[in-house]
């Protein structure tokens, strides 16, 4: 199962304006793992995800997806292996209808038409969105858009899912549904998020980023409980670990 491996070795990246976004990031994620990437705004989460999904090439160091080293030549293979769900569904859903959007990836893979159709059907069914197939994306609710975004990636049958803030801008019920949906996936999952409660529920492992470096990497339960790790990185304990707000106020 080595093709589900994700490995970063001493990755460096700086933007054209000189901002150092990654300074020596190394980790190794194995098959079936579910990893949360957390950190304050500007810590480098999005930059890291873009490296993993083949949107950016490392300025220094290496990224390996499965057996493939990420280079300009292997971009196509990497993009086929990794499914990237963007933060803003409006960026991800650019086709005129949901169906056409979910079919966009499989068509580009060069699959025959009937196979494209069955993949689209299956992906929409998985996220429970078959009923909106004919609708244009701008007429979906926030939760529906998010689910369809995930379907557009699932239809490419990736082994690794990379997600940027999947629970942002969702109402509580839509968030709950999304967490349940993600829990059913057996893919290797890498999720960048500020929603530490979701991280507690979904991810066994957490990587904490701070100023382009890894500040901590370990079991989620340990890291999210440790104020000495969280506070310097601009994070707080997840609400579920903060105790009942009403009871704790009474104690004071």
């Amino acid at each position: 199962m080595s093709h589900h491996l994700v490995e970063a070795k001493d990755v460096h990246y700086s933007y054209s304006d000189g901002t150092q976004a990654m300074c020596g990031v190394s980790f190794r994620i194995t098959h079936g793992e579910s990893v949360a990437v957390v950190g304050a705004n500007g810590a480098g989460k999005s930059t890291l995800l873009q490296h993993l999904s083949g949107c950016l090439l490392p300025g220094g160091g290496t990224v390996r997806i499965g057996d493939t080293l990420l280079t300009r030549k292997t971009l196509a293979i990497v993009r086929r292996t990794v499914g990237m769900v963007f933060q803003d569904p409006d960026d991800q859903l650019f086709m005129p209808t949901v169906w056409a959007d979910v079919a966009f990836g499989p068509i580009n893979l060069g699959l025959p038409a009937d196979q494209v159709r069955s993949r689209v059907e299956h992906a929409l069914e998985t996220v429970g969105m078959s009923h909106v197939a004919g609708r244009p994306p701008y007429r979906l609710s926030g939760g529906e858009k998010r689910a369809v975004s995930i379907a557009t990636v699932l239809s490419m049958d990736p082994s690794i899912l990379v997600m940027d803030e999947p629970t942002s801008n969702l109402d509580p019920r839509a968030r709950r549904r999304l967490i349940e949906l993600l829990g059913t996936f057996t893919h290797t999952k890498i999720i960048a998020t500020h929603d530490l409660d979701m991280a507690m529920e979904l991810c066994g492992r957490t990587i904490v980023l701070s100023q382009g470096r890894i500040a901590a990497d370990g079991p989620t339960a340990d890291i999210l409980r440790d104020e000495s790790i969280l506070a310097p990185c601009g994070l707080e304990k997840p609400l579920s670990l903060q105790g009942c707000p009403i009871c704790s106020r009474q104690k004071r």
Partner: protein
Amino acid sequence: MADIDSRMAEIGWLDRLASRDTPLHRIDPRAKLLTTLAFIVAVLSYGKYQLAPLMPLAIYPAVLIALGDVPLKFIARKLLIVSPFAIFVGLFNPLLDRQTMLTVGPLEISGGWVSYASILMRFVLTVSATLALVAGTGIHNVCRGLERLGVPSVFTVQVLLLYRYLFVLVNEGARMSRARALRSAGSRGMGLRVLGAMLGSLLLRTLDRAQRVHAAMCCRGFDGHVRTIEALRLRARDAAFLVGWLGVLALLRAFDLAGLLGAIATGGGR
């Protein structure tokens, strides 16, 4: 600001109409596009003083509106708010052409008024047919039809992307505009400097969005060409629609139905 919201509401209305399922929606977009074009050419091919012969052609938009169950209110509102250029330029006709063309009892009607009425008739006919076509087809299907008729996909993809992001960008623009209005202490208009900064930052956001959309496309194997496998099939009923209407239009163009009916009516009246 208010007009942004109302224009967006108009677009939303059209979009909802377009997403229904009526007999008009089920006709192949190519058939509808071609007949509508033929209709417009037919309407515009009449001479400038030919008013009465234009009237029977109203059957085409009327049937489209009926088949597509398009609310008349929608068409009427659009007709009223649509760009007044033709109405304005046409107004010169009655001023410039004052020769009497028609006398109805004591009333003398000049050629200018007849040609102006003809311009208005053309306006109502072409606009209502176009709106009914779009309301009964949708931009997406119009573009699919255009593509099948040989329009380069570079162009149709642009139209579709524009339409898709219109909804996103207008919201973004309206939010900025609202934020400005809230902080400008009641001053009505917007100065150029503010406009430059506002549109400029909306533009920069737009460019960032274009980059993100491109990234999202690339992650799903985009190579510069947007492909689709949604097939269009020209069925017997579509062909019948096309041929039937072309025939009707040709007949109406060849024979002056209004004149004939008028002759019968006045002949019978005597």
